[in-house]
């Protein structure tokens, strides 16, 4: 696959986002990666959409780095954007702390953000400030904890339908 566009795009991104403090643009093998503080995500996404043609938000997710590097903020929140005119992509990343896992919502810019932020919110407990509808989407009302966090035990169960009498929940242990 032709990857020359990454080398052409990265300097333009650097120039456009130079005014934002704490911004770093890297050239990964698959697409340029823009890492910046959470407070500037919304403006950066708007710049990418309006000036660079990244009109489609294809993905929102997070990565939990619990216990990997001391002193590192726990979560990476990751957005993938796609341009439809030029077949280019960009990855936006920000680091957020466990104490205040909050990033701005991109719902005013992209309709697709609504559902994907709901999923990221329930799975990781990331708050998307400005998204008024963070109801569970893949999980259910009343689910305790955030299952994709590394400290959520993979064997922990929260059945909505209780087990029948005398049937022990298999391998259920730990708490979220």
């Amino acid at each position: 696959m032709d990857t020359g566009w990454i080398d052409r795009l990265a300097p333009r991104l650097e120039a456009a986002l130079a005014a934002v403090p704490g911004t770093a643009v890297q050239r990964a093998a698959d697409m340029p990666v823009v890492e910046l503080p959470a407070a500037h995500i919304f403006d950066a996404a708007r710049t990418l959409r309006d000036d660079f043609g990244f009109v489609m938000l294809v993905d929102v997710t997070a990565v939990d780095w619990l216990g990997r590097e001391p002193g590192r903020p726990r979560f990476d929140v990751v957005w993938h954007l796609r341009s439809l005119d030029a077949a280019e992509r960009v990855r936006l990343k920000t680091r957020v702390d466990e104490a205040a896992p909050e990033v701005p919502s991109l719902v005013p810019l992209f309709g697709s953000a609504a559902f994907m932020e709901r999923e990221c919110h329930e799975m990781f407990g990331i708050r998307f400030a400005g998204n008024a509808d963070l109801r569970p989407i893949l999980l259910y009302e009343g689910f305790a904890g955030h299952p994709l966090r590394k400290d959520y035990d993979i064997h922990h169960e929260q059945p909505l339908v209780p087990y029948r009498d005398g049937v022990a929940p298999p391998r259920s242990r730990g708490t979220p």
Partner: protein
Amino acid sequence: MNARLPNPVRAAFEPSNEDDGRVIVNIGPSHPATHGTVQIITELDGEKVLRADVHCGYLHRGFEKECEAHTWHNLIPYVDRLNYCSALINDFAYCGAVEQLMGIQITPRTRVLRTLLSEYSRIADHITCIAAGLMELGAMTAFLYLMTLRDYIYEHLADLTGARVTYSYGRIGGLARDLPAGWLQRLDHILSVEFETYVGRIHGLMDRNRIFIDRMRRVGTLTQAQAVSYGCTGPMLRSTGLARDLRRDAPYLAYADLDFDVPTGILGDNYDRYVVRMREMDESVHMIRQCVDLLPAGPINVDDPRCSFPDKGLVYGEIESLINHFKLVIDGPRVPAGETYLAHEGANGELGFYIVSTGEGRPWRVHCRAPSFVHMGATHLMLEGGQLADVVPTFGSVNMIGGECDR
């Protein structure tokens, strides 16, 4: 059991107290008329849908969490079960993402074979979508014709992979096995006889059928601006008239060597989605024939001890291969630390895998960008303003696959 279970979902809107004729109707999650396990809470005025609140997640089984507890190889059967109508595309997208992170170039034969099988799977997926959609409109004959054709394809794929639906056929760095003798001859027969027969009958029955057009035209319309904003890809986006296809825009596998059209619709309604899928099946047949002509001889697995299993004879015969086999099974392939995102054009749209490795045999994080899930976020736009009777056909034309949507 007498105790009432708590309601697993909370509707986005409440019934109004005024006597204005509006009622809330809950559709699904499990009802013979719904297309898959999904719940749609609708606010109706008569039979007109005023608001719709789509809830998915009833097939959620913790795919991404489970991935973190298994080796990179062990995930292949799991990714099969995402979109179980075109499992091979999932296999190849996932393996492609891991290969991208490992810096592996697959062999020329595997490159063409994966392309061929992706297009073959796309045909099976589109058949499923169109067949189910037609059945929901009452066209039982069309459904049975298409299911007959799909079964020929499934049986044919079983000859290759050993399974009808979930194949586990991809391997990191290659494929599970090479084509059996006579497989390509049978493929040619299916495409030129069975496919032409049954799809030809569907064209004859449906394309200019007055009842079908009345039910589908200008129903479930999505504008191009809405489709882009809501992240719609695949036939959903192309039906609005935007010819965007990853196979053309960012060619992967062998797509750069193939000649094919990207069909588009005009209005972005149910009829256009039907036409786009029917046209795409023809393009897939055209691509498969080119792949058969292109198919080079040679090995299917790369010679890389980091991911490829040694020949079974060597495992029993020499200690190095035994250790290599043991380490690959127990520890898993060592994938260099880093992250990557790879998207393939799945049958429903952009199927992406975002994988993060810490250099170990098990992934730190695997995220599947499922087109069905993203499309569910746009479905209320297509339902609102329409008729209650059109909810299920419109929903069917999105081709939401629960395994992939709910992960």
